[in-house]
């Protein structure tokens, strides 16, 4: 390996142009695949389902009339990338009779996304993961609860006299305010 690097004709300027050319050409060669890759990777960010339709959850008569919340599974169509599940469980809600009608709470804990249980004796809600506690109306019951907000209340409507319809939505956990996951 005794070959000497051939001396360019004392032309640092030409060297610079060559280097620039090399970098630009190589860079351009990578543009299309990289851009295509990034686009595909970011695809989930553009998909959103802003308007959640109301879904029929149950009959009014089924909601206990003693003010104790009762859990209901919510079934709806769910699209997961290439698979569409028809009429499949998508989540669950607690329905409670209140003096003004029906209150609907998402069972998901606003702290980190676990499912909140109705404590034995139905005195309050308790999250099994990080011990958040909520009153039966969904407000934070224990100030030491790590949850940043009350349980998420969902829109509920009574249709045709006795059908309970709910706009089922999940919200960003860990935020002080309800931000829908879309």
């Amino acid at each position, binding site marked *: 390996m005794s070959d000497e690097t051939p001396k360019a004709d004392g032309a640092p300027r030409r060297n610079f142009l060559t280097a620039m050319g090399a970098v630009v050409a190589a860079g351009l060669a990578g543009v299309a695949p990289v851009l295509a890759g990034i686009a595909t990777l970011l695809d989930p960010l553009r998909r959103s389902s802003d308007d959640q339709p109301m879904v029929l959850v149950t009959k009014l008569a089924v909601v206990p009339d003693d003010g104790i919340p009762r859990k209901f599974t919510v079934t709806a169509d769910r699209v997961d990338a290439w*698979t569409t599940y028809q009429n499949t469980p998508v989540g669950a809600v607690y329905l409670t009779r209140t003096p003004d009608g029906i209150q609907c709470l998402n069972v998901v804990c606003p702290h980190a996304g676990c499912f909140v249980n109705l404590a034995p004796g139905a005195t309050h809600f308790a999250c*099994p993961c990080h011990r958040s506690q909520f009153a039966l109306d969904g407000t934070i019951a224990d100030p030491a609860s*790590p949850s940043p907000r009350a349980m998420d209340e969902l829109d509920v409507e009574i249709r045709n006299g006795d059908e309970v319809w709910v706009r089922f939505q999940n919200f960003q956990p860990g935020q002080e305010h309800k931000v829908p996951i879309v």
Partner: protein
Amino acid sequence: MRGLLDWLDHRTGYRDVFKAALYERIPGGPRWRYIWGSALTYAIVIQFITGLLLWAAYSANAQGAWESVYFIQYEMWGGWLLRGIHHYMAQVTVVLLLLHLMQIVIDGAYRAPREVNFWFGLAMLGLVLGLSLTGYLLPWDQKGFWATKVATSIAAITPVVGPAMQKFLVGGAEYGHHTLTRFFALHAGIIPAALVFLIAAHIYLFRRHGITVRDPDRAPEAMFWPDQVLRDAVAMLAVIATVLILVLVRGTELGAPADPTEPYAAARPEWYFMFLFQWLKYFPAGWEVFGAMIVPGVIVTVVALMPIIGNWEMGHRFNVGLLSALILGIGLLTYLGYAQDRADPEFLAAKEQADREAERIEHLASAPAGIPPTGALSLVRTDPLTQGPKLFASNCASCHTYDGHDGLGLPPAEDPTASDLAGFGSREWLEGLFDPQRIATLEYFGGTQFRNGEMARFVQRGIPNAWTDEQRAELPYVIKALSAEAGLTRQQAADSVEAADVERGRTAMTTGFVNCIECHTYRGVDAEDPEGPVLTGWASREWMLRMVDNPAHDDFYGDDNDRMPPFGEDGILTETEMELIVDWIRQDWYRATVQVDESEAEAVEVGSAGG
């Protein structure tokens, strides 16, 4: 041969490479304390190999991930061993990393000129933890699903970019196919590639700087090969022995398939993340970012600055002290996390239920019918043994009990107001009903308005007083006949062997020799005064389904129906849900053998009732 190798060396120079790799000088001689780096490299290489082979059998999608892991674990030759080694070697890697880090800090091996290599090491620690986190989700079982969901929810609290970051990581708004494909790409592609790069750079720098020796005059200088390699090889043997023992003794867990709608209260991260889980319990609302990001961020930054801090007077002692404090703190948090779980009956019950469901789905998946194209989750959702107790607990247990509990093993909050349905339809259940001492207890009619009704009076006074001895002698046959109406699978053998007894009971009933048809319609004979439920097909699947559908139907309690809602007619339960409850009460669920002997049936029943 020699000539061939000479030729190869001339063309490639491989001998120099080998020489450079093996003949590294070790001043002070080989030592056991130098084994950690090699043991760690070995563990990571094993993870690469086992990981690639698992990849050859794994499918990253929401309807195939659990199923393919099930197939590896329970069906493929040596699959349990391959997966077991990968599973436990991952945990051993984390332990070895910590030991390696401790050794480096205690020996002060981070000092100039080795700062950059220390940083590479920390980066690799992060990558390995990333591998653990992503790998935990891949089997797509309940445990991995819910534990990982908590982890990505925490990522979402990052100020400003949190939600978008979560969506990017998860591959959509909810966990699904793309969560798996992304986590798999990270776990098997991106992170390993980065790790390979860093390991190469780490070893290159290590060779460039040489080994950190405290006492070069301890023993004569030696070479890496073979003296140190012997010690390293023994260490590798010890590592694989530990892993194999763990695989054999503890087995490799595969929970029930992930169900986004089924709460899993026993969701916990892998043990080496348990301290973080426990740590987060101490931060009330509004402080999560502080607890989950700022404090850990500051600690990691200080650790990264150790090479600089180590140059100061007392700096090295500070570093050793800090690392000791961190390890103690992590140990304490881990201990507290597990101690709190052990003292939490709800957690223990959830854990027990999860174990039972995992065992059950393994049983279902290995059935001749196998796993359908819709995945193992549909097996879980249509299994009476899994769903029955839950549906019973949430729909029936406010009035009924099942063997004294709510179906899931918890005692009822208040006294039951309707009968205990364990064994409903069986001869034993009927024997209790016809027992004057028991009919008016809470087990049967005690909590209902029928406590003082016709039937209770009949059993308590009519049979003992008004019946003749001949009539009373027919009672055991009546019980057999009535129980045969239920057509219980588990009583099939007895019903057919004792067909003559059953026939005798039927005759006694239909001829009016015993007084059933006064109130009950039975086998074509209409009741004289139809007050009680129809007994034709009593407690059969169809009878029970119709009863649950509407107990106030004339075939059942009519206007006398006591508080039981029409579950089907009112749309409280779907057809499928009613079937699951009824099949569970009738103990009609898939069993591996068609001919179940009594003790085995008992064992399954106890298993389902345990809590």
